[in-house]
């Protein structure tokens, strides 16, 4: 088996990447808002852990910095901000289940297979084992996209968006040993700004339609419904 040739650190990396994929599934299915924020925080922590292991096994010292950055930003700061927002909006006890959980999960599994198929030529060309993780990270990106499609709640859609960013980060780390520091700082800053903007938008949406269920934005106003 090919796994025998890998060192323990490299095996650990694969395990962590696989768990990150699993957290994506949890995010997709979780009905409780607070629990999904926690799942997102765990995914960020796992991305940071993968980065640390890549840094330790490959000797890329600059990756330690991006691991710390990821941990602070995606595992601590953004979940904390989201948590505070949710408490302010008084949504912490709200439950919003998926409509067809089994169907959505099977679709997500199909996305995993699809991303594996996409990455296959790349894996066959190069014999670096971390490229296997590219399929996983692509799957995380696609599942984040799926989350933004199937969930109606605005906060959960933001979580889907953020987990897409997690997937992209994992892909960058595993395929090329991380992005240049300038790019990474830029992306981190962008995500932070996006988070702040989302926070403002939540309040705006809430004020105008009295709910965070964005499906209601499809209708014009409540009055036209009544007049009909």
């Amino acid at each position, binding site marked *: *088996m*090919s796994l025998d040739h890998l060192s323990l650190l490299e095996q650990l990396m694969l395990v962590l990447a696989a768990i990150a994929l*699993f957290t994506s599934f949890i995010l997709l299915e979780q009905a409780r808002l607070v629990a999904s924020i926690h799942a997102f925080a765990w995914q960020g922590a796992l991305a940071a852990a993968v980065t640390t292991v890549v840094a330790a096994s490959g000797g890329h010292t600059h990756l330690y910095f991006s691991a710390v950055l990821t941990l602070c930003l995606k595992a601590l700061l953004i979940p904390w901000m989201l948590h505070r927002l949710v408490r302010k909006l008084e949504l912490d006890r709200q439950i919003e289940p998926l409509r067809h959980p*089994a169907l959505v999960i099977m679709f997500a*599994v199909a996305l*995993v297979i699809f991303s*594996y198929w996409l990455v296959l030529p790349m894996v066959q060309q190069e*014999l670096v084992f971390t490229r296997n993780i590219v399929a996983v990270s692509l799957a995380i990106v696609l599942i984040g996209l799926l989350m933004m499609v199937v969930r109606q709640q605005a906060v959960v859609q933001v979580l889907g968006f953020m987990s897409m960013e997690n997937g992209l980060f994992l892909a960058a780390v595993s395929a090329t040993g991380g992005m240049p520091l300038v790019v990474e700082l830029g992306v981190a800053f962008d995500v932070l700004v996006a988070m702040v903007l989302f926070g403002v938008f939540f309040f705006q949406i809430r004020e105008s339609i009295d709910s965070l269920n964005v499906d209601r934005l499809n209708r014009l106003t409540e009055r036209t419904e009544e007049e009909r």
Partner: protein
Amino acid sequence: MIIESWVLVLLQVLLYAALAPLLTGWIRKVKARLQNRRGASIFQPYRELYKLFTKEARMAHTASILYRAAPYIVFVATWLAASAIPLVATGLPTAAIADVIVIAGLLGLARFFLALAGMDVGTAFGGMGASREMLVSALAEPAMLMAMFTLAMTAHTTNLSSMVDYQMASGNILRPSYMFALAGLMLVAIAETGRIPVDNPATHLELTMIHEAMILEYSGRHLALMEWAAQLKLMLYGTLLANIFFPWGIALKADMPSLGIGLLLVMIKLAVLGIVLAAGESVLAKMRVFRVPAFLNLAFLLALLGLLSHVILEVGS
């Protein structure tokens, strides 16, 4: 040599039957201690079995021959399934007879007759329990087989004994697929043996009971066999989890010292597993019956992710 290995088989099969009540007693004891009770002795299940065997077996007037035969079929099928799972040694003749799929089939046979017996007398509880049992097992079995296929793809065999040999030979390797398969199989085991988030083993009259509802009408030796079969099933799943995923110490040779170490280690592993199970049962609350499919979907998802991560992460490089 052949006679020797068959003696070992006989010994292992008897060990299964003899140790199964002990495992149940141990779990009950740990659970009682965790809940600040003193609890009964860990040998209490033996006393209960003895009591039931000496009592007269009463039968409902409407009971058919099937009702009378079911306890024996259930017990023998479960016992046969257990005999194919390596307990203290690998490479025994019974391992060549049955692989994972046959084990799943034997458990399915036992379950089929259990459900039929539940419906046979025609009480409301029996039918309810049988239909619930079928709901649970219809969802649990694919998850179990999927987890097993994950292991089979890694070891290139569906034979449990060869799987254990493969695990021992390849040494300590962290495999994402095994991790997922272990988690999925644990959820399946909880559902199949009727432990707490799915079914409450400590209850006798509750509207949401599953296993107890089916055997409610049984008494005497029939009830004893049914209880014993349930204990055997718990031990079977425990051994499956302990010996496939953590095969350390299992006897590869058939001599006295390695067999002794194998027995000691498997008992320690089962004891640890019992503590984990008891702790989980003390922490969790029982689910509503209609939440059980979601629980088993999670098990299926875990097993499926195990299969996928085997293909994506372990074969590709």
